């Protein structure tokens, strides 16, 4: 009947276990039996069950204690406590501990049927809720990718064509270009969209932490490992794992990762059971992995394993035509989140933004807009609301000449190429300014 629902029966009486086993098996459930709590916990370490029917009185560990242990294992199972003696105090305790229900032996067949039917309905609703939530998130993710430029249209076309396959993908692009958004778009357009997209920021973790994060660990694997913990690969079963800043992982982790990608099996830290997980891997980096391979900093075999599809996201300065719609988008989302009316932006600001090279890419643009909304006059975003004059450090400048050229251009732009006002601001005479313009071949963008 409900072939995909699994039930674990835990009772020290063989006749009870067998009777329930026969009853559920006739209903088409997947059923397992355990004669005590210890055996049940051992079974649960390697397999999840949707429903656990546990006797309250068992030698050794009782049903309530077993239930607490199950909860500490982070299992989502619905636990139903059974007892031969109706006892309100114990029933209340079981329910307080999060048990789904409490039933007194022997059961009326109809009561048992109802109980299991309700529990399976809850499981189905939970799964449906999760799937719908993922769907909503997916829709948002796709809408979050803003851009009409040729370069972005090309990227979005690539996303559409690679989403349906399960091939590994590397997303390359400068910091702040939206690599994670692209990963989300690929996942939410794939067949895996109703399973999780699990993100790991490899650069933020030390080697040992990353190992435990990716593969999980067994209780006692290291100091502080109080309970078993699922790794990200395990959590991504059926879905996608997104490994951000892949270029930062150590040589040891590169070998481990290669092995997992080839076999889709791994062992938790401190464990010995092989765990299999069906995941798709998407990596992102702002480094040139090809160059790293040549320099011996990244394993060649891992590179080729990951680099089945390479999506390159252009930096913002190479798609300046997207700036106006990005600005509109950020104004809308930040004004809305701050419960303010949507405010317009001075076209001078747009022009200025279009001439800026955005080393921090879209993330920098978004921060600029958010800041302008916060500190501005609440009526319009003006040039002076942006941090150009004092905050921005142009990282591409190397020589003193470059710095001078950049500074003169900034002042000229600020005063709309009015030579008198610009020379006054620069504290040089007009002739000197003309000479500098000629020297650096400066031209007005208007």
């Amino acid at each position: 009947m409900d072939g995909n629902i699994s039930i674990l029966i835990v009772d020290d009486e063989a006749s009870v276990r067998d009777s329930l086993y026969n009853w559920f098996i006739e209903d088409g459930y997947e059923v397992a039996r355990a004669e005590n709590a210890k055996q049940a916990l051992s079974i649960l370490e390697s397999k999840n069950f949707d429903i656990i029917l546990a006797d309250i009185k068992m030698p050794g560990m009782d049903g309530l204690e077993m239930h607490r242990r199950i909860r500490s294992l982070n299992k989502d199972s619905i636990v139903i406590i059974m007892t031969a003696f109706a006892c309100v105090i114990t029933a209340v305790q079981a329910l307080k501990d999060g048990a789904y229900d409490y039933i007194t032996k022997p059961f009326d067949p109809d009561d048992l049927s109802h109980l299991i039917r309700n529990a399976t309905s809850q499981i189905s609703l939970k799964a449906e809720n999760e799937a719908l939530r993922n769907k909503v998130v997916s829709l948002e993710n796709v809408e979050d990718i803003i851009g009409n430029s040729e370069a972005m249209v090309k990227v979005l076309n690539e996303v559409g064509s690679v989403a349906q396959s399960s091939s590994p993908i590397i997303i390359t692009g400068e910091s702040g270009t939206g690599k994670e958004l692209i990963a989300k778009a690929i996942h939410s357009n794939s067949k895996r969209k109703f399973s999780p997209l699990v993100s790991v920021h490899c650069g933020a973790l030390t080697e040992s932490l990353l190992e435990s994060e990716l593969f999980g660990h067994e209780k006692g694997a290291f100091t502080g490992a109080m309970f078993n913990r699922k790794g990200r690969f395990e959590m991504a079963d059926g879905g996608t794992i997104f490994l951000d800043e892949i270029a930062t992982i150590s040589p040891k982790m590169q070998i481990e990762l290669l092995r997992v990608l080839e076999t889709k099996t791994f062992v938790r830290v401190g464990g010995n059971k092989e765990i299999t997980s069906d995941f798709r891997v998407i990596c992102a980096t702002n480094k040139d992995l090809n160059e790293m391979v040549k320099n011996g900093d990244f394993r060649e075999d891992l590179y080729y394993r990951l680099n089945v599809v390479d999506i390159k996201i252009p930096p913002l300065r190479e798609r300046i035509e997207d700036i106006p719609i990005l600005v509109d988008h950020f104004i809308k989302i930040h004004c809305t989140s701050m419960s303010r009316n949507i405010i317009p932006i001075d076209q001078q600001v747009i022009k200025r933004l279009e001439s800026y090279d955005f080393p921090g890419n879209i993330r920098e643009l978004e921060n600029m807009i958010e800041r302008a909304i916060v500190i501005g006059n609440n009526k319009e975003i003006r040039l002076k609301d942006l941090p150009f004059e004092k905050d921005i450090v142009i990282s591409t400048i190397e020589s003193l000449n470059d710095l001078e050229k950049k500074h003169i251009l900034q002042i000229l732009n600020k005063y709309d190429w009015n030579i008198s006002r610009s020379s006054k601001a620069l504290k040089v005479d007009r002739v000197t300014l003309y000479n500098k313009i000629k020297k650096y071949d400066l031209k007005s963008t208007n």
Partner: protein
Amino acid sequence: MDELSILLISHGILKKDFLENIAKEVSREFRFPVYIEESQIELNDFYDPIRRQYDGNGILKEIDSSSTSTLVKKIGLFRIDLFIPILTYIFGQAILNGNTGIASLYRLRNEQYGMTPDDELLFDRFTKVVIHELGHSFGLIHCHVPTCVMRSSTYVEDIDQKSQHICKKCRASIGIN
């Protein structure tokens, strides 16, 4: 090759024509020859004085242990109140994909529910329980189709809602046309 057959083993007083009509219906449903046999196992051995009922698991095991060919599906027919340890009562039970089942008409009688006796209805209900349990012995699990005899029934009213026939899908799954 020997053909599969079904054996109805009557325990207790069940009328001959009642049994023969059950056999006819069972044969019509499964399309195998159905035989009737009288047997007197010692039911007192399975009586639970606390529950004042008979242990269905014990009786099922007893019948299953009696030596018969694996080409025979046996079902014990009773008029006693059956239970299994975990449930307050059962109408019948069978070994899934095995060779043995049991069914009782005790809880199928209208009189048990304060209603007037109805022999026709009793026959109809009992036939359904017997076919249902035999279905399990053929490997069928409970079916969602409302009219299929393999639909789970925990109340006698549930039995009345379904037909005595195995649905097309269930038939196909065990290879009976």
